[in-house]
């Protein structure tokens, strides 16, 4: 084996130009693959962050309340008892927060928005304000200052609101301005409230287009809810990967406790509203979902991006495969007499095959390792630069206002392994041809 390895290495060194040419191509494809995978990882990070900041906890305990067949509100009544049941039945809870939900129209100085209202209690939020980065004023006001204005923790004050940068632009408002919220109460009557904007957060893509944070009291007042009502209990776990299991456990616990549990539906709560509204029942139904369910409509972004990455990689690899085959063909042609000699002195066909395959594998491994390292440097560099995403559509899809890339050792090793395997695979056919050359014919081959 070491002999084969030595000969393969010598051959690669001897054919420096060809080795360099094919090697650069393999490195380039590996770099592209590493960057694309890092972008996909970054997108996944953005999705998890946006989802668990705006849309859901790792597990969400929510529900629907219908005072009449036609009126519906996404609320949970008797939250104290529900919270106790969650505490009792879930192990490994990091923390639980309440999210009061509403839907209304916000009227600003220059525009209006239909948004989901998320009511929070500032003192009960251990991590929200760490993940909710605030935007510079210049990001939402023409000629604004390059500094953060306001403090999201001022949501502790009554009748206050935190909106996102793109919303501030559309409404034509800045920190300190007031907006009017217009909505309907549980009984279907129109109600309004004025709220002062205390901070403007950085966009978190599509999800932040339809969400604002308000103080909990404002929601209670606007909808005339009592104090034992909430929109949802968001359960954050020590390990997000346990979400599915905890959701299943909670569904069993709620059923056993006699709650009217809604059949599992892996969709966000607002997708279910038309269906629930059309149903002829009144009262309360509890719904338990995971964060994935609450952003299930966004998985098309991840799926689409993964498909695009693999399509691009496949095209590039196909081009490279043709190059590698061509290079091995050339090597076989150049070394036909050498093959003939080796075969004449007793080298078996399998070992000739192994010789050429080792050469391709070695080239693949070395070049893809260099490409992966280059990709790593690029990924770390781009991520450190926090490149701003200026296009609204790109921001919506990438779920962030800056470009975020993340790679892992597993990703790098996988990229090297895949490219090495594909390089070796593409050398099989010319290697078989070399191995099957009759020694006499090979020796007669003219240079």
């Amino acid at each position, binding site marked *: 084996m070491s002999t084969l390895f030595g000969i393969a290495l010598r051959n690669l060194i001897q054919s420096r130009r060809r080795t360099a040419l094919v090697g650069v191509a393999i490195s380039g494809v590996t770099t592209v693959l590493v960057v694309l995978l890092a972008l996909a990882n970054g997108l996944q990070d953005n999705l998890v962050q946006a989802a668990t900041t705006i849309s859901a906890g790792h597990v969400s305990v929510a529900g629907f309340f219908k005072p*009449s*067949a*036609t*009126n519906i509100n996404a609320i949970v009544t008797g939250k104290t008892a529900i919270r106790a049941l969650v505490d009792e039945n879930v192990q490994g809870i990091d923390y639980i927060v309440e999210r009061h939900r509403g839907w209304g129209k916000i*009227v600003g100085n*220059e*525009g*209006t928005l239909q948004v989901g209202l998320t009511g929070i209690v500032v003192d009960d939020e251990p991590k929200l304000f760490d993940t909710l980065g605030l935007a510079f004023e210049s990001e939402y006001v023409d000629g604004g200052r390059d500094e953060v204005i306001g403090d999201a923790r001022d949501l502790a004050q009554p009748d206050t609101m935190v909106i996102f940068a793109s919303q501030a632009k559309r409404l034509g408002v800045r920190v300190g301005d007031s907006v*009017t919220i*217009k909505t*309907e*109460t549980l*009984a*279907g*009557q*129109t*109600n*309004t*409230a004025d709220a002062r904007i205390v901070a403007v957060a950085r966009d978190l893509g599509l999800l932040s287009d339809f969400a604002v944070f308000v103080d909990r009291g404002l929601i209670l007042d606007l909808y*005339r809810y009592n104090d034992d009502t909430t929109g949802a209990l968001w359960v954050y776990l020590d390990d997000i990967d346990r979400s599915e299991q905890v959701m299943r456990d909670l569904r069993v616990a709620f059923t056993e406790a006699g709650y009217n549990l809604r059949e599992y539906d892996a969709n966000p709560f607002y997708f279910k509203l*038309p269906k629930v*509204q*059309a149903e002829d029942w009144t009262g309360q139904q509890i719904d338990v979902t995971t964060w994935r369910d609450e952003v299930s409509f966004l998985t098309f972004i991840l799926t689409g991006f993964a498909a695009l990455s693999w399509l691009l990689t496949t095209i590039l690899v196909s081009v490279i495969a043709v190059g590698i085959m061509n290079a091995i063909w050339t090597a076989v042609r150049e070394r036909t007499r050498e093959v003939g000699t080796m075969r004449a002195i007793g080298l078996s066909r399998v070992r000739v095959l192994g010789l050429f395959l080792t050469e391709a594998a070695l080239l693949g491994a070395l070049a893809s390792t260099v490409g992966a390292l280059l990709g790593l440097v690029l990924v770390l560099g781009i991520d450190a630069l926090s490149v701003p995403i200026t296009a609204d559509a790109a921001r919506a899809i990438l779920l962030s206002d800056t470009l975020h890339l993340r790679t892992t050792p597993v990703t790098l090793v996988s990229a090297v392994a895949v490219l090495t395997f594909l390089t070796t695979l593409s050398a099989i056919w010319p290697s078989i041809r070399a191995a099957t050359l009759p020694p006499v014919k090979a020796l007669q081959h003219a240079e």
Partner: protein
Amino acid sequence: MQRLLALIAALIVSLPAVAAPTADELVSRLRTVDERQRSSGDFQARVYLEQKEKGKADLVYEAEVYRRDAADKLVIFFTRPQAEAGKGYLRIDANLFVYDPTVGRWERRTERERIGGTASNRGDFDESRLADEYAPAYVGDEMLGQFEVERMRLSAMEGVDVAYPVVEVWLDKATGNLLKRQDFALSGRLLRTTYYPQWIKVFSPSKNADVYYAREIRIFDEVEKGTNTTIVFQQVQLDPLEDSIFTKAWLEAKSR
């Protein structure tokens, strides 16, 4: 002399109290407003809706409205523009449904649904039920332009499904017609001001009396300043309508 002056002063002070109508009288006036608009038979009209919104292109719709007040049924069927043609609303009892021909699906909506995305809602097209839905309180007599009007503040009755919990109305003292209406939110904020500049009467053989309808309704959004909706009723007819009109099947067939 002093006694006489004191008596005159007392009379002047107590005059508004004497002039203020009783609660029953106010309810009676509201019922008159409702009754005059109520058709014991059927009602149909061609309706034009225009919505002007700040920073957006104007919306103009044409629709057909069919009403059967005795059975609480209402159909609004959009005929223009092409993009909205075939869309329709159907109210049966307390349920309002909307049909979208592009997806061929019915959805239940609340009574407060904004018709065609405009500031109008079901109540603007349906029969008036002020006396049944609100408890009136007298505010005062005043002038509205050249009209002498009676102003009332109406509060929604307990358990009644209305979009606006508080409403103020201005009734023409001479004719009893509703000339102006303001809708308020629970918070007390003024939401809409509506003017009814022209009332038309049509003789109804089934009622054996005139039925009144506002030929034009102008709705001004008081929260989103610059947004207003105009509804114009034309070709009003009170002839009996086919029963099938007030069904989902009819609306679906018509939208094809």
